[in-house]
């Protein structure tokens, strides 16, 4: 009888003491969780704002090119930027694109599309500028990347990105290891063929996905590439 009592006691004691022992962990977890939620509530909008600011800041140069964008900024003129969400149906899932419609005095000047995909190291986020008729690429900006420093991260340089400006968008771009000469050919970054290819493939996919929704959408009423400059 006595032994049984002892056994029960120790079993029950152990169980409860396990919980009791963990009280500090539990209390800390709750406390830290609350403070993290607080930090996120406070900073989340700021972080989202940073990304959006960067995007909006880049829209003029992506649509108009550096020179014209600088000129417009100098003259204190701005583009009207209308964000919208485009859903593209893919087999098995829907893909969402954030599209920014850039208008100047009512005329459609072009589109900026946010797109992302797998790079060599991590996800690459791109902003892609397209002419209103989707015939030409007007600009490229890398919003987020974690490619190899010194090699793959050269995709963010002006020199490399400028190859895409005025590249044709109505056929697939091809990555060439050295000496791209014809339109639609892109020189790979030396030592970073994978990063170069993923960026190019993302652009090809994005343009392909968006051709139909953007050129037949309601806001492409002023269709035609005449306002390209």
């Amino acid at each position, binding site marked *: 009888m006595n032994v049984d009592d002892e056994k029960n006691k120790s079993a029950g004691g152990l169980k409860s003491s396990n919980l009791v022992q*963990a009280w*500090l962990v539990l209390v800390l977890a709750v406390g830290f969780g609350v403070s*993290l939620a607080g*930090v996120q509530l406070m*900073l989340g909008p700021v*972080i989202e704002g940073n990304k959006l600011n960067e995007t909006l800041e880049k829209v003029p140069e992506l649509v108009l090119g550096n020179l014209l964008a600088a000129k417009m900024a100098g003259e204190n003129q701005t583009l009207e930027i209308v964000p919208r969400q485009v859903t593209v149906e893919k087999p098995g899932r829907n893909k969402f694109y954030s599209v920014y419609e850039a208008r100047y005095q009512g005329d459609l000047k072009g589109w900026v599309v946010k797109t992302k995909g797998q790079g060599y190291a991590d996800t690459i986020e791109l902003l892609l500028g397209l002419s209103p008729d989707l015939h030409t690429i007007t600009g490229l900006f890398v919003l987020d990347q974690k490619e*190899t420093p*010194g090699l793959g991260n050269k995709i963010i340089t002006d020199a490399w990105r400028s190859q895409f400006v005025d590249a044709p968008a109505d056929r697939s771009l091809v990555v060439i290891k050295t000496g791209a000469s014809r339109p639609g050919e892109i020189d790979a970054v030396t030592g970073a063929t994978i990063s170069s290819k993923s960026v190019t493939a993302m652009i090809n996919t994005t343009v392909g996905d968006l051709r139909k929704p953007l050129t037949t959408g309601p806001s492409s009423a002023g269709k035609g590439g005449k306002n390209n400059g």
Partner: protein
Amino acid sequence: MADLPTATERFINGILPENPVYRQLLGLCPTLAVTNSLKAAITMAGAVGFVLLCANVITSLIRNLLKPHLRIVVFTLTIATFVTIADRFLAAYLYQMSKTLGPYIPLIIVNCIIICRCEVCASKQSPLVAATDAVGQSLGFGIALSSIAAIREILGTGALLGLRIMPASWPDWVIMVLPPGAFLTFGLLLGTVNWITARRGGKKTA
């Protein structure tokens, strides 16, 4: 308690005698990865310093409540919380820098310097000692990171913090800003530090 180092000793130890990078060889992941520019290295050292200070103080405050077999859980929980806070702050107020550092900020969670200080110092000594220890170790870490980063940036790009240092004819040693450069620089600096210590300490060095 009596034979544990005092606050001042802890502080001084962290800077060179027990430098986390050059003496203890801890926290080498950020040491090798983010030292291709001085600015990134300083930001990283600042983030580690913030996390280390907060984690050390909290650990020290609750040191009498810690159960031996649950202590690592508590350390990790505390560290992870402050790393997340640091990460969010960088993304909100140093957006470009947080883009540069990328995954290395979240990786501070597994930085062994911090868990080592919690274990060695904060879980045994008062918050004041723990705080000075954290500051000393952070300074030591910052000095180590900055020294490697400065050498790599100067040799690799010819400039430091945007300031041209080398003559214009300097052929940038691109390899110095690439990963191999980190190993080369770190190895040479570590060798130098050991050599200096050996010469100074004579027979005392183990």
